[in-house]
């Protein structure tokens, strides 16, 4: 088994999962100018809800993923409307609220699902893998790449080809001017927060057959989303995509080549970017 080939494939698939996780984070950060520290928790909660749907209620995997996304969208909308909007004057307060919520959600999940890790079975259509060229290609992981591409295309179409997308892009570029022109930016905030939360919840169940769902998943994944978005650029879809791939590669190859410096290697690009080019590779403005 050629280790470099395995790592390369896993880099791309891990990058796909990271894209699903961080696309929403990037949009929220870009439009609302706040790093949503609840994002990892919404990933985890979506994973738990989806896992319960498949394991307890025996719903099909894709339906469970949809339910997880919708549940997180509603949850995200409630957070934005009733908590974040009241603190619209203070960005710091909003960030702290998201952090507090993350801790509350973590305890809430512990109460409902207890501390045991929940492994979701790979959907049977995508189980197993193919052996070719002396390597083993797990079908589900390849499918994650395709799902990430489809979601990326859908988000691109939303942002570039719809009026809503144009308004969101305007809000990301310059919220004050957008308001002057008549765009209801606060309503956009709610929509984008719901969308970001839905993506996170969906990603949570997508990741569950690989990562399982367990207490601590939220803070295991949140730093990765942060690194991807800082590197790729806040508010940029292309940035999230490229950033996810880059971090996927750094994660896999870095852990192999420099295991003692694992997380240092992962966060060094973020530090370099913040110092040299704060808006990231494709960002429109500094975070």
């Amino acid at each position, binding site marked *: *088994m050629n280790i470099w080939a395995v790592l390369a494939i896993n880099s791309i698939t*891990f990058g796909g999962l990271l894209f699903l996780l961080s696309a929403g984070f990037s949009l929220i950060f870009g439009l609302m100018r706040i790093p949503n520290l609840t994002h990892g928790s919404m990933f985890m909660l979506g994973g738990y809800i989806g896992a319960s749907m498949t394991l307890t209620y025996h719903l099909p995997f894709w339906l469970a993923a949809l339910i997880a996304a919708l549940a997180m969208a509603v949850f995200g909308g409630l957070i934005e409307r009733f908590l974040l909007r009241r603190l619209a004057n203070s960005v710091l307060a909003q960030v702290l609220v998201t952090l507090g919520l993350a801790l509350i959600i973590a305890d809430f999940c*512990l109460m409902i699902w207890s*501390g*045991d890790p929940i*492994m979701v079975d790979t959907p049977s259509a995508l189980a197993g893998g193919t052996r070719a060229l002396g390597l083993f290609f*797990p079908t589900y992981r390849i499918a994650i790449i395709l799902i990430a591409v489809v979601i990326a295309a859908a988000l691109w179409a939303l942002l570039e080809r719809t009026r809503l997308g144009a308004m969101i892009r305007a809000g990301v570029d310059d919220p004050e001017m957008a308001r002057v022109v008549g765009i209801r930016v606060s309503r956009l905030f709610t929509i984008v927060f719901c969308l970001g939360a839905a993506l996170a919840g969906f990603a949570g169940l997508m990741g569950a057959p690989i990562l399982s769902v367990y*207490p601590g998943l939220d803070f295991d994944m949140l730093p990765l989303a942060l690194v991807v978005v800082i590197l790729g650029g806040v508010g940029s879809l292309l940035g999230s995509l490229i950033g996810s791939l880059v971090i996927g590669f750094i994660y*896999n190859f870095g852990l*192999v080549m420099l295991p003692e410096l694992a997380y240092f290697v992962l966060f060094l690009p973020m530090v370099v970017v913040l110092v040299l080019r704060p808006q990231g590779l494709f960002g429109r403005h500094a975070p």
Partner: protein
Amino acid sequence: MHLNRRKFLAGTAVAAGAAAFSIPSIAQAKSVKVGLLADKTGPLAEGGIQMEQGITAFLKSKNFTLAGQKVDFIVADTGSNPAQAKTKAQELIERDHVHFILGPLAAFEMLAISDYVAQHKTPILSLAAADDLSQRKPNPYLARASATSSQAMHVMGDYARKVMGLKRVVCIDSDFAFGYEQQGGFQQVFEDEGGCVVKKLWAPLGTPDFTPFIAQIQDCDGVCQGFAAAAPVKFMKQYADVGLKLPVCGGETAGDDALLPHFGPEAAGLITACPYTIDYKSDSNAKFKAEMAKEFQTVAGFYAAGMYVSGMVIEAGLKALHGDVSNPEQTIKALRAVNLQDTPRGPVHFDHFGNVVGNIFVRKIEKVGGKLTNVTQKTYTNVSQFWTYDEKKYLAQPAYTRAWPPVKACKA
């Protein structure tokens, strides 16, 4: 005195306040106070919750009365972090005046509180496996009924070599003390019996995806892992996803019975060594499993069993002391002198460091009746923390760390 409304309200408040303070009654002074330090929140919460369940099941079965004494049971949440563990230990000792501390779970929590607890002469029945607390830096008030990190892995090294017939093994574990001590114990026995550890891979705590490490497993005929908490479940899944089919063996947490309902089918075939196993035939194990199922609807595992057995040790100690826990030196001596034959893990007694000597079970995960369960393959009896090594020689060698025992080139 002119009674006006203000004085009346003030008087009522004082009276109510005085009533709220409990008046120590003579009967209350006879109760034994037992404090539990468990991670009820945080990443280690899974084990902490089971610890509480295990000891609660024991105390409930005895109606909270041990050796004729009423037991005051206090639970404190360490939050999976050492600073909070220290704070809670202080509360238990200085505010609640506990006679015994059960737990904590994690070695880093135990190391944070060990000196403090020893200073305050409080007997502690720890689950935490840090080797040196009963070896090179012993805590004189420790009675550990679970095991050291390496205790079960010495057995795994022997079984992997002699029964599984493995010759070259890649060790993979989490990058912290529990991982180092487990793999060190495995490596020492495995190599002393002619095997060779080809490489040791360390995954940082909190690694979501082990695939980069699994991809480095090559040039061997078996894998040894010692993951804990949630990691064993996803490790086995990710291992299968990479397409590897080499046999995997592991430590006490890697195949924990409590995780059995959560493993996917890829975990079948995993062989682990543990101080407790679900199919051990003893009256008390049958009782223990029934109580766990009834009270908590859960499968009993190593964490719960460790605390249940510790509860039994406290009971036996109290019997020997005739209920007198006023002298800590006598108390710890009585605890370490306990020798039980019928426990959920079989016979237990303690060595002179306060660490348990007892059974270690080697078991394999198999599908029985449509569900995964642990099936005992071999029982090693009377296993001490030093394996078959001479105690003085063992203590003279370095503690197991990331770099020791070193990985040497294998012969052919």
